[in-house]
């Protein structure tokens, strides 16, 4: 037990500082991926709901494919594929050899693209809860498409989507651990480094797990609070 605390110390020989920095990297990459996914998801949900047949087919294929393929493969694609693309572009400018994509960017893009597929489904489901009457009522008082979107659709879809979005966030957070394969020093990678140098893998993976657990638990509380807050003005019952 004392040993465990020694590993966590912030002084020399302790891994406290490195683990704290890695925790921030994990949260940062997860947040970036989550927002990229949110933007993509909204776009795809919109395509699914109001696009023509070609748009709808593309959007449907996107969600089907991305939800059916392991995330690790997508991370490999973005990391190695991105580097390949970047090296080709660089060679046009006369730079020879390998130019790597920053692992942070590749990782955030990869989990963004994957979580976008899930968020699209959440948004679509939330939109379908909206009653037609409300949209018609909005139109009848003269709201244009954009105003209707901003005043009526977004606030309600957001509220209905919140629980689902919370689940996606938890998923993104846990998926961010996979980015360790690209060498990004996030929580799991840092734990691997520390485990290698101290030869105490059990303790360090346990610590990494505990930090992940703390983050997911904290986000659960935040989302629950948010749901209560946004649900204040909603009619009772099962909304």
């Amino acid at each position: 037990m004392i040993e465990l605390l020694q590993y966590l110390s912030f002084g020399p020989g302790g891994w406290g500082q490195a683990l704290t920095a890695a925790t921030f990297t994990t949260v940062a990459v997860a947040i970036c991926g989550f927002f990229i996914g949110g933007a993509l998801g909204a776009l795809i949900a919109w395509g699914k709901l109001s696009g023509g047949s070609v748009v709808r087919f593309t959007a449907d294929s996107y969600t089907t494919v991305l939800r059916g393929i392991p995330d690790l493969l997508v991370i490999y694609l973005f990391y190695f594929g991105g580097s390949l693309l970047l090296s080709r572009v660089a060679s046009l400018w006369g730079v020879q050899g390998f130019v790597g994509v920053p692992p942070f960017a590749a990782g955030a893009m990869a989990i963004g693209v994957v979580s976008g597929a899930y968020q699209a489904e959440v948004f679509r489901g939330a939109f379908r809860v909206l009653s037609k009457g409300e949209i018609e009522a909005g139109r009848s008082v003269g709201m244009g498409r954009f105003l209707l979107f901003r005043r009526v659709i977004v606030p309600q879809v957001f509220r209905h989507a919140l629980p689902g979005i919370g689940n996606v966030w938890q998923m993104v957070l846990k998926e961010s651990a996979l980015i360790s394969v690209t060498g990004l020093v996030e929580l799991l990678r840092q734990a691997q480094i520390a485990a290698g140098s101290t030869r105490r893998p059990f303790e360090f993976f346990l610590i990494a797990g505990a930090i992940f657990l703390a983050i997911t638990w904290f986000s659960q509380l935040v989302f629950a609070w948010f749901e209560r807050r946004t649900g204040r003005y909603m009619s009772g019952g099962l909304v």
Partner: protein
Amino acid sequence: MDLIFIRDSFLQLLSGVPLTLELTAFAFVLGLIFAMLLALMRVSGIRVLEIPASVYIFIVRGTPLLVQIFLIYYGLGQFRPTLQSLGLWQFFRDPYWCGIFALSLNSAAYGSEVLRGALKSVSKREIEAAKACGMSGLLLYRRIILPLALRQALPAYGNELILMVKATSLVSTITMMEITGIAARLISETYRPVEVFIAAGAIYLAINFLLTRLVSWLDWWLTPHLRGVPAATPKAEHINA
């Protein structure tokens, strides 16, 4: 885009399919058994059983699967002498068994939530009717509650199966050469990530498509009462959907 190269990688990746399916099947079945135990613990109404199950589910669902895999494969290696004296070392030094162990422990936590919901959905009237016929304890569970709950859980548990197929890709990080492991090796050898991704992705999609079909067929087969005669019960289709 090099079609011949995609075909070649596709053929090479196919050799990883048996391992992926094997891991999926093993971990799924073990996971289902653990999940059932956890779910029964949670609905038992006995606090000494309920609390450990809830804590377990909370911890496993709150941490990444990859951390769990590393903890079991690399972490437990630290206790080699103890494991050797217990005769468990053979098991824990093998990435294959560690992978299956980690996957099934993980899937048990998620699956138990599905099963818990399903167990709760068994209507009181049916349980009362069974009790009135004199069934109790194990017989009641075996004949009435479990079959009804499992059927109820099937569609949601089908998602769990798909997630399991995807999750097996993570054991490639502990040296298992299943589809993703081979894909990673091909990418680093040939440096053509896009083509390899297309080939590997196609295989995973095909597997998941077939499994989804299988689950929905099973669901259809197990719910004859929802099918009905189309003309007599026009709403049957609506209930099915």
